[in-house]
């Protein structure tokens, strides 16, 4: 039986999620793993926007912030279940993306990057300043998802770390599956066409502005769910989740690993999530090294780490 690239990607991802826990020296690594999956989900959205459609966003943390604070606020103020709150956050993020993206996606290049940057910073400013609602920079508690207790009732007793590891892993798998399906769909083809050349895409009948807007909205929904997951597993959220640096992190993870493929981007999320953990000894040099890694990878491995490594292994050279 020959696997299609899509099946192979999902299989590799599922195997990694299922098998790595056997090598964990302590329970702490479940937490790091869960964090990688949460970042991986956001980064999968970036793959759709940047890898498929070739558009740049520097404000996706704004959507993560909306998703995270929806989980903190909607259960308290609207009486929604946290899972429904996450869905509400995603809908809200999608609508915001549509509103912001519609006028801007007609423009090109740096403009979307700049507009999203402005949007992201405005969201984080509102989260920091509207203390009556968000309690400001100190952060706010997030209610329990309740799923772990439910599983326990069914006889599946997982520790908190284990539960969030496997639950985030599952979410990432579903997210990756949807993104890979999109790649081969008519919308995905339209996105890739406009990435190659907007004019050529328009000539063959692609509604360029509409296709870009779709990619932007979808990736915003990914970021929102990633924010919700992060808030739910930490049971706490601060406005940092919507901060400019978080937006930069998302884009960097995706591009570092290889924004052209879902697996590459998730690989990048893994590397950049592990890097600070590995560098705690060199805490003073963390920024220096992060900046250096960003520059070196972009200059010398333009397609990103994973594609470059794979090519080395296959030995096909340049």
């Amino acid at each position, binding site marked *: 039986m020959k696997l299609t690239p899509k099946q192979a990607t999902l299989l590799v991802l599922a195997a990694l999620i299922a098998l790595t826990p056997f090598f964990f020296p302590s329970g702490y690594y479940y937490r790091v793993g869960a964090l990688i999956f949460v970042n991986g989900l956001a980064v999968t959205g970036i793959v759709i926007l*940047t890898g498929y459609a*070739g558009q*740049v966003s*520097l404000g996706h943390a704004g959507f993560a912030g909306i998703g995270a604070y929806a989980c903190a606020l909607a259960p308290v103020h609207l009486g929604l279940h946290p899972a429904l709150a996450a869905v509400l956050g995603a809908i809200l993020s999608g609508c915001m993306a549509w509103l*912001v993206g519609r*006028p*801007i996606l007609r*423009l090109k*290049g*740096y*403009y979307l*990057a*700049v*507009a999203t*940057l*402005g*949007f992201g*910073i*405005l969201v984080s*400013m509102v989260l920091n*300043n509207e203390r009556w609602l968000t309690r400001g920079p100190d952060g706010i508690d997030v209610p329990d998802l309740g799923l772990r207790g439910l599983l326990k009732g069914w006889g599946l007793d997982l520790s908190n770390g284990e539960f969030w590891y496997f639950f985030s892993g599952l979410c990432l798998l579903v997210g990756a599956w949807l993104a890979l399906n999109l790649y081969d769909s008519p919308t995905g083809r339209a996105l890739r066409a406009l990435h190659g050349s907007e*004019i050529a895409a328009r000539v063959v009948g692609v509604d360029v502005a509409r296709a870009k807007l779709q990619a932007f909205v979808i990736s915003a929904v990914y970021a929102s769910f990633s924010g919700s997951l992060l808030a739910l597993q930490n049971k706490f959220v601060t406005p940092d989740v919507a901060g*400019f640096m978080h937006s*930069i992190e998302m*884009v*960097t993870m995706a*591009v570092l690993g290889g*924004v052209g493929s879902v697996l590459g981007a998730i690989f990048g999320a893994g590397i950049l999530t592990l890097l600070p953990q590995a560098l705690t000894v060199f805490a*003073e*040099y*963390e*920024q*220096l*090294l*992060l*900046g*250096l*890694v*960003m*520059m070196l990878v*972009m*200059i010398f491995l*333009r397609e990103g780490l994973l594609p470059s490594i794979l090519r080395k292994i296959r030995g096909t050279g340049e």
Partner: protein
Amino acid sequence: MSELLQFLLSGVTVGAVYALVALGFTIIFNASDVVNFAQGEFVMLGGMTTVFAHAAGLPLPLAALVAILATAAIGVALNKLAIEPARGAPVVSLIIITIGASIFIRGAAQLVFDKQIHKLPAFSGDDPIVLLGATILPQSLWVICGALVVFAGLWFFFTRTLLGRAVLATSNNRLAAQLVGINTNFVMTLSFALSAGIGALAGVLVTPITLTSYDVGLGLALKGFAGAMLGGMGNPKGALAGGFLLGLLEALTAGYLSSQYKDAAAFVVILAVLFFMPQGLFGRKSTDRV
């Protein structure tokens, strides 16, 4: 009335700094089509280097000169080591390279200097000048004059000197400039040195008022960027006007609406400009070649 004048005066002061950062952006953007997110770090380096050189015993003007030259050298290094090797890379890669450079410079500054907040003495005293019931610091006048002098100097350089015209030619069409014998690599080097030097000058001028520390760069870069965007990317006149306008908007927002949201003014402006007049106030309509 004096209240409004006070807001306007402080707005013009801040605006002058934004205008200097925006001018720096514009020079690099014109020469290389790169939006340099490390622009704010030049301002930080200018201020911090002056503080430390001054503390080491150099007289203030000499310390400022050292800082400006050192920052210009770092600008050139940024071009040679990070921007030039990545020529032809997609926009997103260039964005990440300059953001990486900005994080790198910040990390280096916190090691070479420290994480404290620093101050420089004002150039001509701290006694405020009273003007129609409002007050302005002598240092503010230094900042405002600095921005105007730099703009005038740039205007002269770009329109009246051969070298300046070579820079303009390169920004219009790199290949054509090369074909008529312009050394475009030198033009790039010059643009980065000039831009970094202007950023450093802004840092030197404003540090006595706003203080400085290793992490002031990013905020300034974003504001300067907003100013450049407002005036129209790539247009020095636009950068100057956009910077001043943004400073005024910010001061008026802080005065009449909410001081918490004064920083929001810049980003609301960015979004409004992009929604309604993407070319900015002074930009030309651009056409694309197929």
